[in-house]
């Protein structure tokens, strides 16, 4: 197999590639934050009676909350802020399909490139 000689990349081309990567990083990480997609579903299950007892706190727990500077009123939103785990099946299926598709593509395309590498490395000798 003949040895592959890659083209030399111009300075402008290098700068362009760097810009592409930076933009991709920011879009991938920043966009979901901007769109409010990051973060789990938590909501406050409000209680009328804001006492340590109603909040399910025993005397030891209540004493610690108070040591930390909380009252039943100020601790209410922390204690009652709960997750509501619901399995959204369509999203789960999409997520699984995206992940599996990604890994399948990754391994298959990598293998094609790897064969070039091995052929050149070992068949040149």
């Amino acid at each position, binding site marked *: 197999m003949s040895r592959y*000689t890659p083209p030399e990349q111009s300075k402008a081309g290098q700068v362009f590639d760097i810009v592409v*990567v930076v933009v991709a990083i920011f879009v991938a990480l920043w966009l979901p934050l901007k769109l409010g*997609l990051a973060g789990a579903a938590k909501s406050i299950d409000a209680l009328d009676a804001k006492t340590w007892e109603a909040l399910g706190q025993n005397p030891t727990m209540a004493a610690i909350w108070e040591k930390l500077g909380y009252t039943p009123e100020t601790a209410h939103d922390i204690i009652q802020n709960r997750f509501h785990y619901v399995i959204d099946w369509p999203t789960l299926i999409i997520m699984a399909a995206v992940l599996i598709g990604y890994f399948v593509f990754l391994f298959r395309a990598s293998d094609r490139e790897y064969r070039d590498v091995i052929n050149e*490395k070992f068949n040149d000798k």
Partner: protein
Amino acid sequence: MTTTVLEPAIHGDRVSLLRVLGPAHVWALGVGIVLVGEFTGWNFSADKGGALAALIVCWIVGLLYTSVAMIDSEVTSTVAAAGGQYAQAKHIVGPLMAFNVALFLVFAYTMLEVSDAILLGDTIVAKAGVEGLTHNSFIAATIVVLAWLNYRGVLMTLNVNFVITAIAYISIVILFFSVSPWTQGAVLKLNELVTPGNALPYGWIGVIAAFQFGIWYYLGIEGTTQAAEEVRSPARSLPYGTMAGMITLLIAAAMTWYVCASLMPWEYLGITYYPLWDAGKLTGSPLLENLLFIATLLAALASANGCINDAARAWFSLGRDRYLPSWFSAVHPKYRTPYRSILFLLPIGLAFAFIADLNQAITFSILSGVLQYTFMSINIMMFRKKWPLGTIRRGYTHPFHPLPAIVLFCLCVVTFFAIFLGFGSQLIAMTIFYFLISLWFHFYRYKFVRRGDQFTMPWPKPQGY
């Protein structure tokens, strides 16, 4: 921890990285990156599933990372090159996988560095208690100063890490023995805080959800391999430093959970940014409170320091192999560090430190980490298949193969499900990003890559090719 002769590592005819590090530096790099997870982050798993769920995932995720450390030790002690898992992927799976793995590493470490800087800034602001004081200047100072330290040299960077990591670790041990852990009721009140009624407030679904932040107990231990090209004896130092680091962390995680769960209600434990500092406060001892305050800052500094080191080396490796513009592959003529990569990643870290909050930054890091662990479980299977035992010289051979790989893969699947329960859209967005950037690499960027040069190990042809 002394060095004798500073001999340059040879990589072609270019100026290259220095081989100056020993096992203590490897330990400091791994534990230094991870130990901050005991000071913040792991406790969000209590929020997800309760205090008992945090303990369950501490051990199960410990199993995941033990598998990671075992697998990584074998492959890295054989493929000792800068970039760690990146170099492994290049030799075992192929260039595209290597490109992705390097991006996983850069994202995981850069976002971990961001989390560290946010923690450090928030801790100082909370301690100062001055109205109107924001964390921004502390975050910027942390990232810039540590980047400068990394720019100046790896030996100085990891010597600093060794000292501050040791102080932070000792502070956990001091806290543990100061609260009479052998008796309940005097200081610790586990029985009254973790009761049958509140141990698992969401049931077993909460335990699974807790996996997401359970990862934070140990995330980054695999970073030891990034120093492979700067270690004097990679086959000995890397497995030794990594396994010693894992044992250290398992002990620290168990002590941390026990003390924190015995000192504060799970609802508070799950939302505080400073569980160990709070534990120090709740003991009533000003000495412990101040010690844990300082240790929180030191742990954050050590972690951010190690992350800058690792992310820059992964990025540097991409440039050196022309997976990215070769401009990034420059080594500083005087300090022998990948200075352009360090400088390039600096503004990215700063930008996300200002736009993301702590648990979002942690989640970014975890997502890339879990993608990488999934790769590792498949990678070791391919490694053993392409070069069975006895065909090449391995520095270390991990036992019970393929059990660790299967355990790792299964736990990664569970963790993906846990991430789905909180950050499913984020996971989909990031995977799509990796997919699109992979298309860009495979169909465009790969043309600049020299094919045969990707394989640098003195191994025979892999079986099946």
